Every structure is written in C-alpha cells, then in structure tokens.
C-alpha cells in the first residue's frame, strides 16, 4: 500500500507530490498523458506541430500522436485548451503568477467588498494563504518579469489610465505592473541575441525571449531540465519530486507513471463513512489495468477530468455540486494596430498586466502568427461587423467580431506591429456552468466522457458588467499606447483559465471540499488543482493560487494522516533551481 497516490501531474499534483516526498512519504503519481523526457528532441518552435488540438504534441490526448485525441462534449461555441502530459497545462502556460485578489477571501473588510462574488468566497482569510504563496514563489521561483518592447508599449498605455504602479505582490487596488512570472530572469546572452550558438547554457541563462512559451520551454539549450527558463511543473516541481532524496534530509523520491489514465477511485466504509482507498488506472499503450491501494488519494486531473472521474467512480454527490460552478474568466480579446514595432511575436507570452480589483484584469499577450490569426477569428460576435450575433457594437473600436478575408490580412500584415490585450473577467460561480457525463457521445477507453456546458450568453449581470468595464479599459489602454485601430473580438468561452468545479467552500450546500480541501463526502480524498479553487480569484491567473493551496493541502495531509507537523509558516523551502536538484537531475538524466 502506498502512502499517497496523486492522480495527475499538471499544475497541482506535482506540488503535493514534491511536498510529501520531501517528508519521506511513499508517493505514486499517475499521469494520463505522455512524459516528454527529451523536449529538445521532441518539441519544436512550430505552432501547428505543437498546438494543433487534434494532432499536436500539446493536446488533450494519449502519448501516441497517431491515436485520437480524447473527447469532450462541448455543446456551444467555445474552445477547451487543456493539455495532457507531465506538466499538464503548465507546459504551455505563460508562467504568470499573480496572487488572488484579497477581496475574494473570507473576512475581507475593504470598502469594495460588495463588488465580489461574496456567496462563493474562500473559506479563510487572504492572510492565511500568504505564507503558502511565499513558499511557492520561492520554490519555483517567481520573479519580476523583464521587459521587451511589447511590455514597454503596454505599460506606457497603462500608465495613462490614471492608476499607479503596483510595487508589491498583493493587488490592493487598481494598478499596473510587470507580471510576476515563473520564468527565470535573463542572464548572460539571454535576451540579447538571436544567434543560436550564443544561446547555449551556461552562456545564456534564464529566458532567451524566444517567444515560444505556448510551444513548451526548453531554453536555453542544453540547460539541465530544472534550469529551463519557464517553471512549468515538468521543469520545476516534477524534477524536485523525482530527486527528493537528494535535497531533503528525509526525502524519498516519488514514483511517476505516465500514460496511466485513472479510471476509478475505490472506496471502503469505515465507521459509517465512505473512505477512499484505491485507484485503478489503464495503461494507454497496452490497455492493461492496474489497481493500487493508498492511505490517502489526491485528485489533480483538472477542472474537467476530476468531476468526470468522480462521477465515473460512483462517488457520492449528495448536494449535486460535483462539476458545478465552472469559472473561466470569460475572456475577451482586443487587438491594437500600432504605428511602430512592438515585437509582439517575441519574448515571454505575457509580462505586463493591469488589475482592477472587483472587476478583473488585463494582460498583454504576444503571439506568433498562427495563434495570432486564430485569436483574430475566434468570436461570438459575427464577421467583419456585418452581423454581431446579437451583441451590441462597442463604441470607439474600429471593428467588432472576427476579421476575415482581406481585413484579416491587413490586420496581420505585420505581426510585430500588434498589441493584444486579454480581458480577464472576475466572473461569478454559477451552478449552470458545469461538467457532467455525456449522454450523447460514447464512452471512450477510459469511461464515460465529460460534457462541458457554458451558458455564456446568460452569465450573471456582474460578470457581464465586469467584462464590459474591462473591455473599455483595454480600449483606453490601447489608444493611450498609440493604437491606430482597435478591434474587439468578443470571444466565446476560451476555456483555458479553468476553476472551481470541485470547489472548496464554507457551506456544505454548495461545495465539494471543506476548508482543508478534503472531500466532504469521501474521507482521505483530497483535491489539489484549479478545480478546488472556490471562485475565479477575482481575475488573476489561477496556477499560483492552485499551487499555494496545494501546498497547504499537502501540509494538511502530512499532519492529519501521517503524524507530521505544519512546516510552511516558519520554514524555508528549497528552490527548484537549487544546485542539489540540478546535480541529481543531471546524474539521473531527468
């Protein structure tokens, strides 16, 4: 019997695994997708090869790219952008690590407290989470982003909005700032040259400004895996978990099994209570199934797959909140056509942001051409202003909805003269937005498939109001930055920031998890990923808060079930770039 089985090696699972492995627990991590052990050979800086949702190396599908991707039913205009594989969706994330807004936590007393989704707040205070934020920020590490041209242009526009620069980690009021990113700051030749032979580790260290966060980070070339610039979990927490015996006095390295799709969580009854005690998984390559028992089980399969696994396992759902309350930041997208070079296709995906607590935020996003073209043609707002699908025209922009034909070609004629702004809405938890099991599509080899429903045209008034508020701010920012034209895309749900389908909460009537992230209805079963978040954080990107909460969950597991003690508040974590980790990574060829 294992101490702990973690299901999923994405943004949250490896955090729990690393923390518990550091304390000597026997941890098994199962990952449904591939493990890209040699990214320099397996990945390329090519968009279709990487990001094609059907056949790309970054997709929601099995390790074997010749096999079909995994199915989800999405009965609306939308796109779900989630990855399988060790590292999960952090493999293509931008490393943005803002903390949640304090207003979404219990006990918040600010004058703007009524602006937030008070019915679904965190069941503890912001200050409670701060030590866990600091722990993760040190471990990854999270650092203030270096600026490229596009960030300078964005922040110049933001500085004219009449709001100050934010100079702390905490979003206390409306302010603009460089991102706090899980990307190593550039040193040596990094960021200073495009010459390949000069961009080899250790001449180059940290971010080389290549512009391919979304295609996976393996820069600088020949760096040890834990020193690749972007701190996706495959570059940070997973190497640490696999080398825990090398950097922690009592550490025990984890066992990691990729290509292992968990299909059932087994339970027993103890003292009249349902208790999780085993996991069954299917090996993609062979079709074999295995079952192992564990003292504690942690679900980290993601915001769509956790409800699926729960329901396919027949686990109890007495309040019917499993899968409900899906939040996605109801993104929108504005593109500014700039009079001069912005370098939009270069550098980290996003290194600058503006926060408007109570409404959400904005961030700049740079893209290479195929994703830029997709972003300009993904819309719920019609084509070329000819029709708008019922959405009102936004005053002050030069176009609403998709750009198609020569308008698309004109817009994208120089990808490095664009400035994109992503609208990140502080959206409400709504029961109607949810994951269930599809009744119409057939089960795949891993069981009944999930159905994701977003009633995006019937979002709450607050959500819609916030989105419009932010779109107006984005327009103003782009104009201040000098945009000659601005286009608003009115995106349908781009389900990329995903949260809260297995939400923790104070009330047993609308939450799946208690305040420690243990399942209310199944003991010894915890959830550690974005699905455990109680709300959409007020707009900030979710990974850091997921990781802070997962750290807290690991500490709870250690204390509650393994006789351990709390260690975060007064402890000091080892960094993922620590030389002991590096030495072990090199020695073990990880």
């Amino acid at each position, binding site marked *: 019997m294992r101490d702990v089985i973690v299901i999923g090696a994405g943004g949250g699972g490896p955090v729990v695994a690393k923390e518990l492995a550091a304390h000597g627990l026997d941890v098994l991590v199962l990952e449904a997708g591939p493990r890209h052990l040699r990214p320099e050979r397996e990945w390329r800086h*090519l*968009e*279709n*090869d990487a*990001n*094609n949702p*059907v*056949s790309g190396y970054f997709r929601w599908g099995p390790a074997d790219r010749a096999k*079909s991707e995994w*199915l989800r*039913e999405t009965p*609306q*205009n*939308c*796109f779900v952008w989630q990855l399988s594989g060790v590292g999960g969706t952090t493999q293509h994330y931008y490393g943005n690590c803002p903390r949640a807004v*304090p207003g979404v936590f219990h006990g918040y007393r600010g004058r703007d407290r009524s602006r937030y989704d008070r019915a679904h707040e965190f069941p503890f205070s912001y200050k409670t989470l*701060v*030590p866990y934020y*600091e722990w993760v920020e040190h471990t990854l590490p999270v650092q*203030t982003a*270096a*600026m*490229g*041209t596009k960030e300078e242009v964005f922040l110049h526009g933001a500085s004219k909005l009449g709001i100050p620069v*934010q*100079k702390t*980690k*905490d979003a206390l009021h409306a302010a603009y700032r460089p991102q706090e990113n899980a990307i190593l*700051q550039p040193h040596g*030749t*990094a*960021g200073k040259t495009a010459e*390949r032979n000069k961009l080899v580790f250790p001449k*180059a260290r940290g971010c*080389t400004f*290549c*512009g391919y966060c979304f295609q996976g980070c393996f*820069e600088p070339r020949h760096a040890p895996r834990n020193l690749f610039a972007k701190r996706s979990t495959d570059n940070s927490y997973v190497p640490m978990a696999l080398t825990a015996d090398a950097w922690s006095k009592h550490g025990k390295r984890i066992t990691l099994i990729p290509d292992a799709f968990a299909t059932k969580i087994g339970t027993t009854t103890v003292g009249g209570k349902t208790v999780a005690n085993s996991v069954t998984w299917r090996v993609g390559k062979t079709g074999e199934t295995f079952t192992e028992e564990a003292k504690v089980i942690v679900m980290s399969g993601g915001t769509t797959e956790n409800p699926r696994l729960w329901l396919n396992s027949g686990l109890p759902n007495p309040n019917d909140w499993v899968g409900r309350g899906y939040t996605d930041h109801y993104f929108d997208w504005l593109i500014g056509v700039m009079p001069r070079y912005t370098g939009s296709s*270069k550098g980290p995906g996003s290194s*600058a942001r503006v926060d408007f607590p109570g409404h959400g935020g904005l961030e700049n996003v740079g893209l290479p*051409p*195929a994703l830029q*073209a*997709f972003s300009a043609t993904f819309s719920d707002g*019609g*084509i070329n202003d*000819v*029709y708008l*699908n019922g959405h009102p025209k936004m005053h002050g922009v030069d176009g609403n909805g998709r750009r*198609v*034909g020569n308008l*698309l070609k004109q817009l994208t004629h*120089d*990808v*490095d003269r664009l400035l994109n702004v992503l609208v990140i809405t502080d959206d409400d938890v709504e029961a109607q937005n949810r994951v269930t099991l599809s009744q119409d599509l*057939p*089960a795949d080899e891993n069981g009944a498939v999930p159905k994701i429903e977003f009633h995006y045209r019937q979002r709450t008034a607050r959500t819609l109001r916030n989105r419009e508020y932010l779109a107006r701010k984005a327009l103003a920012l782009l104009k201040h930055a000098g945009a000659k034209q601005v286009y608003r895309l009115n995106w349908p749900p781009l389900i990329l920031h995903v949260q809260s389908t297995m939400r923790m909460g104070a009330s047993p009537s609308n939450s799946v998890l208690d305040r420690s992230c243990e399942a209310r209805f199944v003991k010894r079963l915890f959830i550690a990923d974005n699905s455990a978040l109680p709300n959409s954080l007020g707009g900030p990107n979710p990974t850091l808060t997921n990781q802070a909460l997962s750290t807290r969950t690991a500490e709870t597991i250690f204390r509650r079930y393994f006789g351990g003690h709390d260690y975060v508040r*007064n*402890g*000091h974590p080892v960094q993922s770039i620590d030389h002991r980790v590096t030495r072990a990574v090199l020695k073990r060829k990880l």
Partner: protein
Amino acid sequence: MVGSPAQVGEQGDSRSGLRLLRSGISRRAFLERAGLTGAAAILAQIPGFLAKQGWLEAALAAETDLTRDTLNGLVAFVVPGPDAYSKAQGQSSKRPGGIQAGTTPALIELLDRFVGTSEGPTLPSSGGVATLLNGLAVDVNPAASSGAFLSPFARLSFADKIEVFHRFEQMTEGSELRFVSGILIGAVAFLAYGEAGVFDPATGRLKGKPVGWTISNYSGIAEGRNELKGYWQGRRSVHTSKRYHVKRHARHH
C-alpha cells in the same frame, strides 16, 4: 485523407451507417458502433443535421473533388490570395493566401484524421462540412446552384459567404454543432498562418517558408531574440505588502 481509395470505397458502409441511424438506434450507440473517437465523434453529428435539412443524400453522393473545391472556397474566404477562388468571390489579393499556404489539405486532414472503421464511416467529416456549406450557399443565393467550380459555396460572393456563416451560426445555436460553426473559421486561419503546408512530418523540418510567415512579416523561429529592454522602473523584485506581512521564525526546511 479524403480521396484515399479506402474512404472512397466505403460509400456502401456510409449508407449502412445511414440505415442504422434511421432504424431508430441512438446516436450514442451508433457512434460506438462506428468506432468514432475524438473530433470525429463530434463531427459525426453532422449527418444527422444534414438529414434534418434534407441534404444527407447529396452529401453521401458527393465526390471528394467537390469537398476539396468547397473547402478551397472556404480557405479563400478566410485568407484570400491571387487564386481563382479568391477572384471568384470578388475579394482577392496579390500576396499569397490560404490556398497557396496549403491550407486545404491540412484542413481535410484535421477534419478526417480519426474516422472510425468498425462499422464504416458515416461520412468523411470534411464532406459533411462541405455539404453544410454548399446547402447553406444555395439557400443564401439560389443562383449558386450552377456555374464555375463544382461547389456552390465556392461560387458565392464574399458577402454571401458571410451570410452563410451568419445562418450557420444561427441555425446551430443551442445544438451540439454550434461548436463546429464557431470554430471552423478560426481553424482555417490557424492552419493558413502556421507551417502545416510545408511541414515534413518524416523529418520534422520545413520544406519551405510558410506563406503565413510571409504575409504576417514574421521573422521566423529562433532560440532567442535581441529583445530585452530591462526592468520597469529598474525594479527586479517585489514583496508582500506590509498589510499582509506574516511574521515568521526562520527555520530551514
């Protein structure tokens, strides 16, 4: 993919699939028997939709040349170039467009990649999409039923093509095909501006410069860029605010 002997030869299976659907078997059971997975299962909803419009028989009888012709009309609509399809719609460009980028075969491959075989495909997904566009094209402009090209959609003006998508989005609202009507143009744009048309999967290398890179003035791939401008206001780090500072007693982990 479409046009391969295996698929063209499976017309009979397609018809048996249609008979199964009409026999009252549930869509889920049908999809299970058809062995469809991934996007193919989503796109397999198209035949039922076509049947409701009375377009299914036409779809099953369609030749692969018609599919290619239709999707050329779609690719030219999204990213026009100097080709006949772009000129026919009244919106062309001297600079290369989606057709020159090799988008049409990439789109067909994306749509048809995982068509199942256990009961035979219901209909190649690319053919289903093409039939939808052609059916809507004749609705929008009945004169498109004859003329140059095999495809009525390819015969439409640019404005009429927009109207096709207007109706496509409206008529699929509330149905599971809303995903397809929403994503189709974006998928074409992504493929047209990416490297799909010149990528050699055998070597992992490009056979030429992608058209999308030329028309977007993209500098091409590199391991890094000379783009570092420094730190905003020279600040390289920030910390927790005083309001939320938590006292700690240092103890090494």
